[in-house]
């Protein structure tokens, strides 16, 4: 029997699931280690930590469902080679089929029964009158519909994946540079330190948005120049999203690298590292076995703190025009598309409201979770007496 659909694995899906699997495997292998378990117990034991973790888990679930992609098979003659729709859907789309397909003509307010815009209607007596036409699906749009009649709740839910990807994959791209170069600079010193410091001072000296904008413009031109590489619009948007994450990672590693450099400078003078060196332990082993585990808490704290900043940055970058693909669902694109709606008479507020509200909840949960993680992992952080 032939499947009625063809699974599609976008690059970002693969990376996201790989990251998740890696994280789970790490947690599973460490589950009996006290030094690993205790801080997480502390995080989950605090009210704010546990609460924000639950909210983040809900967002993550939506994002993961939205990362299981497929293409529907088009109805065709039996015996013919199967044809698949060009549109890439996800498990979330399938679950929300009603929300996705029950579109209206244009704007309608949350839970409204009539459109937001007057039209010429034929009354029962046959006369034309201008009035608000009834909706096709009255009362089903919890957050209203946008300009082309799409359900705003659906758009908001679809935007979650983009935010999560930007927040996590950027860190994935950033970590090798930050960890490798930061520790190397601190541990080896000398000319290695000089070169690495030169590189990150140079990168730091360029205004962040401009460097990102410059790199994104270049990627954009390259993508436009090679349309043959992408078989669907979703694949193209996906590559652009990954490029954006890579660019944010390449421009964002300097802060953590500087932190790790300082830490490595301190650690290399401590007895256990000195002893390892005296015993003739190879350098690479000292770095991976003795230095790396002792800076992991800093890496983890930075990764969690950066997450919220990156979710917010996506919106700003999309507004500037150097964010994700304009056709991709993201909070930035939602805000960008709706930014003139407050200037309308009467005001259309629900799309902006939804985008900001979803973003606020996600970022607030991430910030609170980051605070809890920092309190548990950072020996220097303030503890409530």
């Amino acid at each position, binding site marked *: 029997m032939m499947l009625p659909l063809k699974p599609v694995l976008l690059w970002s899906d693969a990376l996201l699931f790989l990251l998740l699997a890696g994280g789970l495997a790490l947690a599973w292998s460490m589950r009996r280690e006290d030094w690993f378990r205790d801080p997480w117990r502390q995080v989950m034991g605090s009210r704010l930590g546990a609460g924000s973790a639950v909210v983040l888990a809900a967002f993550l679930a939506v994002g993961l469902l939205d990362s299981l992609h497929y293409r529907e098979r088009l109805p065709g003659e039996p015996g013919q080679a199967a044809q698949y729709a060009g549109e890439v859907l996800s498990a979330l789309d399938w679950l929300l089929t009603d929300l996705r397909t029950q579109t209206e003509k244009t704007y309608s307010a949350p839970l409204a029964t009539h459109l937001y815009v007057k039209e010429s209607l034929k009354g029962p007596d046959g006369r034309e009158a201008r009035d608000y036409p009834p909706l096709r699906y009255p009362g089903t749009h919890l957050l209203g519909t946008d300009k082309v009649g799409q359900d705003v709740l659906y758009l908001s839910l679809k935007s979650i994946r983009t935010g999560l990807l930007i927040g996590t994959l950027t860190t994935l791209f950033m970590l090798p540079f930050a960890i490798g170069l930061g520790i190397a600079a601190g541990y080896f010193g000398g000319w290695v330190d000089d070169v690495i410091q030169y590189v990150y001072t*140079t990168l730091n000296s*360029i*205004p962040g948005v*401009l460097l990102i904008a410059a790199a994104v413009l270049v990627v954009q031109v*390259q993508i436009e120049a090679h349309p043959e590489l992408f078989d669907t619009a979703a694949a193209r948007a996906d590559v652009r999203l990954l490029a954006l994450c890579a660019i944010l990672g390449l421009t964002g590693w300097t802060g953590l690298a500087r932190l790790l450099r300082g830490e490595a400078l301190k650690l290399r003078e401590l007895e256990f590292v000195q002893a390892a060196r005296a015993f003739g332990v190879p350098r690479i082993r000292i770095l991976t076995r003795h230095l790396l585990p002792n800076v992991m808490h800093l890496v983890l704290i930075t990764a969690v703190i950066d997450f919220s900043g990156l979710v917010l940055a996506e919106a700003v970058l999309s507004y500037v025009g150097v964010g994700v693909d304009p056709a991709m669902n993201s*909070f930035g694109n939602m805000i960008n598309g709706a930014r003139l709606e407050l200037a309308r008479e009467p005001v259309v507020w629900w799309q902006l409201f939804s985008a900001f509200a979803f973003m606020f909840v996600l970022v607030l949960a991430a910030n609170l979770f980051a605070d809890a993680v920092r309190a548990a992992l950072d020996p220097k952080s*303030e503890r409530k007496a």
Partner: protein
Amino acid sequence: MLNYFIRRLLYAVPILLGVNLLTFALFFMVNTPDDMARIHLGAKRVTAEAIATWKAEHGYDKPLFVNSQAAGLGQVTDTLFVEKSLRLFAFDFGMADDGRDIAREIKTRMWPSLAIALPTFLVGLLCYVSFALLLAFFRGTALDTGGVILCVALMSISGLFYVIAGQYLMGKLWHWFPISGWQPGLDAWKFLVMPVVVGLVAGIGDSTRFYRALFLEEMGKDYVRTARAKGLSDTRVLFRHVLANAMIPILTGVVVAIPRLFLGSLIIESFFGIPGLGSYTIDAIQAQDFAIVRSMVFLGSVLYIVGLILTDLSYTLADPRVRLE
């Protein structure tokens, strides 16, 4: 002191050269002038001649590093790298794609940018440090807890929200100020207030929390205990000792940002229609005018390095123990 500055200036040269090489690599090697011509001509009008004409008009019809057709020194100087990249060192920014002189645009547009960025920066610093001192003074009380929660909530809101909401409330609903625009001269003030207020509010959460953590760390130190033990009042310790000692970490983050105020804010300027460098940059990005983007990158790096030198200088003023040698 003089030696120090000479050394710092010499150190700036390799950094600026690095910035230059990086942008050159991005805009001329990854992305060739041919690509650039194709974007500006549009898909329909792309022919080999059209691309060649566009490149000649905008001065992009030269080899990257070595010009084998030129004679003598011209082999090295008559190239894109020297013409387009090294010239930036003389602040010769060249022409934008629309044929206007970039240096002149920068000179006229930096004043509106500064008119918004400077008050935002100064008033902001004053407010944030005061709020942080207040929270630190009442540490552990309900006021402090409430303040911190408010800060976390405020910093979880997108910056775009502050701009859009501020514009809607102050401009459209209450009619306090014109929604956007600019007027030269003293009349500019009514266009200034809204962006400055929005900029201030947008920064409250982040900065107050940062300074509060700084003050709390300082208050945990031994000298504070000694000062309290010898009978100094809480207020006196906070304002005389803690504030003075926290100056170094505060200056570290603050002074480096001062020269960059010239560049303005991309988001605020574009929302409020301020003809400053921020909106200039955002327009250039959207029009894919690489000449302007390159100039702004270079200018930004120069201002950053100036900021670093100013930071060192400010340390000597804030802490007599610091000497620049």
